[in-house]
């Protein structure tokens, strides 16, 4: 069997700051198959964006340094590649789209120039061919009035149109892996639906593996095949999207689902909130990081850190209470 397009093994990223070392990503493993979408879920500060930036090797050193683990792209470990090797891979084998499309585009270059630059960096296309391809790509991502938009600058486009340009750039060289970091969070709900539908269609056509980072469980339910839940830099649960919503194993996952209003729910129901907030990475409690907020915490949870176990095939959970059943 061929290697999955993306395989992350025991990835560790530490931030070296004046206030001490913080383990922002602490032993993350995940793999994404061709045509599969894995959602990376958690609240701010849980390490989901830092995981993505680590995979892309886009974190500034200092303060961030990858201190261990492997990131295999189509079977090849890229964690130790020199920067010019990474430059060749980013945009060609692995693409990324960010939350704020305006700030991922160059404000003083036209849409055409930015897409052409990607194509000429990574492919053998000449300028004329690249320009024709840029037009095709804009049509492909559903840009209204594509021919005219080629000459537009980002500030002349709406947020939704900018995100389409960013997506066009990310898929320009048909990468086998696409990382989408909160790609629709800044967009209105009808435009969000358009962009989600577009990403699904592009994935169905190309079979690319996708990591979808979001804090919105509604978006997770709409897009993901599998879900990885992170808390304080670590994976605390992994399951198929159906299992996760139907029978969440980790109390944090259950808390997130309970805290999200479900449509059609009875009116009187109070939302199940999670007390307290995500702890800062430099002040993590001993034992399980979630224990101080956990309704099921036991004595053991405060002293000992649970590791991932597999209570059933295809799912993983790091929780003593879940292990006990």
């Amino acid at each position, binding site marked *: 069997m061929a290697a999955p397009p993306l395989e992350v093994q025991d990835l560790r990223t530490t931030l070296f700051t004046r206030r001490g070392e913080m383990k922002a990503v602490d032993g993350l493993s995940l793999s994404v198959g061709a045509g599969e979408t894995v959602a990376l879920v958690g609240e701010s500060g849980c390490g989901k964006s830092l995981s993505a930036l680590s995979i892309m090797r886009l974190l500034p050193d200092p303060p961030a340094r990858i201190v261990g683990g492997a990131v295999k792209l189509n079977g090849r470990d890229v964690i130790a590649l020199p920067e010019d090797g990474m430059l060749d891979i980013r945009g060609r084998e692995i693409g990324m789209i960010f939350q704020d499309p305006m700030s991922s585009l160059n404000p003083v270059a036209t849409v055409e120039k930015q897409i052409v630059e990607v194509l000429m960096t990574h492919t053998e296309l000449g300028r004329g061919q690249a320009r024709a391809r840029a037009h095709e790509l804009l049509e492909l991502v559903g840009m209204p009035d594509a021919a005219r938009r080629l000459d537009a600058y980002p500030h002349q486009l709406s947020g939704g149109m900018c995100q389409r340009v960013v997506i066009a750039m990310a898929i320009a060289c048909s990468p086998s892996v696409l990382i989408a970091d909160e790609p629709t969070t800044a967009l209105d709900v009808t435009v969000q639906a358009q962009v989600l539908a577009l990403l699904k269609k592009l994935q169905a056509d190309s079979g690319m593996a996708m990591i979808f980072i979001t*804090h919105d469980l509604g978006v997770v339910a709409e897009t993901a095949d599998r879900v990885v839940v992170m808390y304080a830099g670590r994976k605390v649960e992994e399951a198929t999207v*159906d299992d996760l919503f139907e029978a969440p194993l980790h109390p944090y996952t259950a808390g997130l689902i309970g805290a999200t209003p479900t449509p059609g729910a009875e009116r009187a129901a109070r939302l199940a909130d999670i007390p307290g907030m995500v702890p800062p990475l430099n002040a993590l409690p001993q034992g399980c990081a979630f224990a101080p907020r956990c309704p099921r915490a036991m004595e053991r949870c405060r002293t000992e850190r649970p590791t991932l176990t597999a209570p059933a095939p295809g799912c993983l959970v790091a929780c003593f209470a879940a292990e006990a059943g």
Partner: protein
Amino acid sequence: MSLLSLKDVRVHFNTANGVVRAVSGVSLDLAVGETLGLVGESGCGKSTLGKAIMKLVPVAAGEIVVEGENIAPLQGAALAGMRRKVQMIFQDPYGSLNPRSTVGRSIAQPMVLAGWTPDAIAERLETLLGWVGLPGDARQRYPHEFSGGQRQRIGIARALALSPKLIICDEPVSALDVSVRAQVINLLEDLKSRFGVSYLFISHDLSVVEHIADRVAVMYLGMLVEIGGRDQIWRTPQHPYTKALLAAAPIANPKIARSRKRTVLQGELPSPLDPPPGCPFHSRCPIAEDRCKVEKPALRSMANGAEAACHFA
């Protein structure tokens, strides 16, 4: 008598490129003890309408009636009485707190302006901090020492200081994490059942509005396109835009999400500088006909009891 009654409220902004009709003729009523959700996408005028009720933006025309008194023409000191009745909380609690004022001073400000004695203020401060679940020593500390959720609690405490009848909540939980968002929503609901305060709850997040609102108003390009009870809006939406919004909202349940048929609304919001003639929604509407391009539909009663502004609903 309604607590708040808006009659044909209009807010216009003069810009270098022409006049933006941010709110163009909104009428609605909000009853005592009611939570009215106000939804729509960015640029639809929902926040501007909230600010207009607070008189934070100039009102071009129309009446804003609070407990029988039209406050639209009032200026300056004459507004003080109204400010006791209507307060506001904002999306970004950090941006709405003075970073160089202690939390105690920020919460006390409305009481100082209302002429309370220092003793009365000190006593009230303690009560308020308790209500919103902040520690007593919070009053000596500064906004930067608090998390986003705690800052929103500070904003709520300040809004509650003068026991208002109505609080305008402008995207109060949009910047918060899921677990903290639930805490703040629960707090708002607790305060409502304790004090009978009413909310105008402005949000783009339909699942939050469905959870908290008794009635819901839907705005598009400065106009109300539909208003009705929470269940009427969610179970039997009448206006094509309301239907499209509900269809676009993600559902946190993979089985329902997969099984429902969605029609994704095409296009984007037209520029409010150059709104389409006739029905504001006709350029994106799946059922628009020629009539919609010339004749602006007015709100009218529907069979289910809600009101919608559509020729063909």
